[in-house]
């Protein structure tokens, strides 16, 4: 297992290096004058020139690339052009907000969707199975911004049960924050319930039909033991893999939901940084999302390797 972890971490480091290189190329393709962007359109040209010098915008590209690699390691990308604050001070609060929404969304989604998937698989081709599949398909085919707006209007505006915005006041306690986040989290549930339930169902059906399950039943294990020790361990591997990649997406891809609920998360921050040509923030944001993707997929791989020892042997000589 240790060898497997080392190999996976090394691969992640290579991926990160490639990501930083790609980001550097993309950012340098776009023409801009960072000094002018910071100092404003009416600042004297001498001020702009001095700023560009200080920022190293006039340095050779190779020097800038070396600096970016160093920044990626220390995660110090200087100041955001737009906010005039250190990038970390802008990025990390947005990351924390996205994390809260993602965690709440997953806490609500995973138990019910995994349970529904297993429930449907064990009642294959019954009305219950078809209901779960149909409901899941219907809910996941509605984009989250549609379900978000609908929930916001019905529950927030019409019924007044929950706040229509997701960002709680700064002095709000834990439960108040939950209350504010509930509507967008419910919109996530609507989308991901069907997706995860269907994958879980398919994995469970496949595991239930497998030889090892038949053997376990034949050797007289209880139904509960068969399910927990043999079926679930194998059935949930695709679900874990999907969750691993989806978490990365959830951190940066909920732009529409963030807009609807006026929730300043990571996704909208990065999109705005791109449109503002706020390169330090954009670069740091993209690299941060890359790191999140790597960490979540790495975690998912490790969980899968723990669940299924055969997975650790992939790529090794046997």
């Amino acid at each position, binding site marked *: 297992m240790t060898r497997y972890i080392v190999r996976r971490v090394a691969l992640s480091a290579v991926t990160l290096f490639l990501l930083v290189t790609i980001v550097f190329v993309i950012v340098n393709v776009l023409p801009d*004058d960072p000094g002018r962007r910071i100092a*404003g359109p009416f600042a004297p040209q001498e*001020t702009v020139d001095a700023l560009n010098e200080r920022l190293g915008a006039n340095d050779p590209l190779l020097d800038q690339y070396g600096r970016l690699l160093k920044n990626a390691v220390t995660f110090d990308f200087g100041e955001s052009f737009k906010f005039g604050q250190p990038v970390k001070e802008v990025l990390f609060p947005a990351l924390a907000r996205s994390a809260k929404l993602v965690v709440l969304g997953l806490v609500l989604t995973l138990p019910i969707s995994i349970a529904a998937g297993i429930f449907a698989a064990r009642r294959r081709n019954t009305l219950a199975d078809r209901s779960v599949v149909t409901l899941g398909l219907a809910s996941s085919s509605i984009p989250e911004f549609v379900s978000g707006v609908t929930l916001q209007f019905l529950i927030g505006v019409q019924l007044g049960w929950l706040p229509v*915005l997701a960002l709680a006041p700064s002095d709000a306690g834990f439960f108040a924050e939950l209350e504010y986040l509930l509507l967008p989290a419910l919109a996530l549930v609507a989308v991901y319930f069907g997706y995860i339930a269907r994958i879980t169902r398919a994995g469970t059906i496949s595991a239930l039909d497998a030889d090892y399950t038949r053997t376990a039943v034949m050797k007289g294990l209880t139904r509960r033991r068969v399910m927990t020790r043999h079926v679930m361990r194998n059935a949930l591997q695709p679900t874990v893999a999907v969750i691993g990649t989806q978490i990365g997406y959830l951190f940066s891809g909920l732009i529409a939901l963030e807009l609807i609920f006026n929730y300043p998360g990571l996704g909208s921050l990065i999109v705005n940084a791109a449109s503002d040509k706020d390169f330090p923030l954009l670069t740091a944001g993209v690299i941060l999302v890359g790191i999140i993707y790597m960490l979540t997929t790495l975690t998912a791989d490790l969980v899968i390797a723990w669940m299924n020892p055969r997975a650790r042997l992939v790529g090794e000589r046997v």
Partner: protein
Amino acid sequence: MDWKRFDRARRSIGPLELDLVESYAQGRISRRDFLRRGAVIGLSAPFLATILAACSSDEGGGDVSAAPTGGAVQQGGTLRVANLKPVTTDPVAMQDLPAYGVVAQCFEFLCTLGDDGDIAPGLAEEWSPNEDGSVWTFQLRQGVKWQDGSNFSSKDVAATMDRLVEAGQSGLTGVIEVGAVDASDPNVAVFNLTGPNGNLPYLVSVFNAQTPITPVDYETGTTLQDSPNGTGPWILDEYNGNTGATFSRNPDWWGDPPPLDKQEMQFFDDFGTMTTAMQGGSVDAIVQFVPIGGEALLNDPNFTTLDIEAATHQEVWMRTDTGQFKDARVRQALALTFDREAMVNTLFAGRAVVANDHVIAPFMPFFNDSVPQRAKDDEAARQLLSAAGFPDGLKAVLHAIDILEIPDLAALIQAQSKAAGFELELAVEPTDTFYGTQWCPPEPKDPPCSGAAELGIVNYGHRPVPDVYLNAAFATNGVWNSSQYSSADFDAAFKEFQASVGVEAQTAAAGTLETILNEDVPVGLPYFFNYLAGHSNNVTGVRVSALGQMFVEKAALTA
């Protein structure tokens, strides 16, 4: 008419004031215009009241000093205000209404917003012109302190004006030069203008949003959050360009203490979300909203709409120096395709008035109605296009900023101009990129805005007098002159307008300006629309300038 009282009053005033008083007495201007203009040239409220009483006018109108307030108000509490995300909060460089709204909480103007919606004493307690309006003297309010504890003085005014002139951003170009403000008396700021100007108080008021007074050592390029040291009723506690700003009451403010303890300004990306937040009770007040998408608020019995007649408008600029719109006939042709009534009804449900391709709004006291209104005429437009060398029509990209109703206006222009031969491709862009890439890119710098797109739509906030529009958007080398319009006739007419201090002279000069702009059409200007803002019914005392500024120092929550 009480002639005795009237005579006594008019004997105490100069020629500029006398012209106004005579205009009113002879019925040439309305009571409302008399009050407005009187405030501009520094006539006191008691004097205005004396003239009104002497003339025994039976026109309706508001009290110049009354401040409407609600019933049982609570002391303390926090007001949650919805505003769009500002681009930059540098008082000198800011160009967007949301930024005006943020900065105006901490920094103040010589002339502030009165309860009647016009200008009123702010950091200046009173002001008066010399005989021809070329020198204006502002008596500054005494005992005003910056939030760092230092004293406000005329040196701050002089330094602010110098910064503004150097930046060339605030419509003061050509009005004053660097060093124009004499600050030898700390309590008096004397503005020595480059020529007579009857509207100077407006140019140093909330209605010229880049002119808040900043400390003498303030540097251009410094944002509010970098140096939140104003004289205003609110102290900036926290600022996050992504989420919002919080302000607390300034205990040392010169005015009556604000009833509220705090103000939380939440930033939004679009009007739709702001409107939903207001509907759902997540905010108490909304700085601006638009009729399209705002119907629910307009019909909400728990919401108070602040519907302000304004000169707010959108300008469809066309490059006059190069490209397909260089020939005035092409520009006239596009303006002829506008179905202005349809625009007003479709986009504003009637909360707007038709405009005539110039920036002098019908409610301005000197509006000259002698210029015939341009009406839709596709056949005439086709002929003009053909005569200008485009017999088969013309293809162009119409750049539009993604704010307010502008994307819908762009779509209407695209549809309405098709029959005349215009094939317009729409390019709608977000605020942050539009201003700096399509409208007035920072480069090339000379002349300003010479990097602007060939055709585009940009938004202009309300100004009670058109000087800033005329100076910045139309005067040769104006800082917002995206059409690169340059006309000796216009420049001369503008000078004449600025120098006109009497109402009749201003009306005559305005007529010349209207005619020139209507014929040359550097911009198509289809309508002026009302500014909509509002608050929930449990809030009172909120005022808005129609320029993105919501003033809440008199606001309170009610039981």
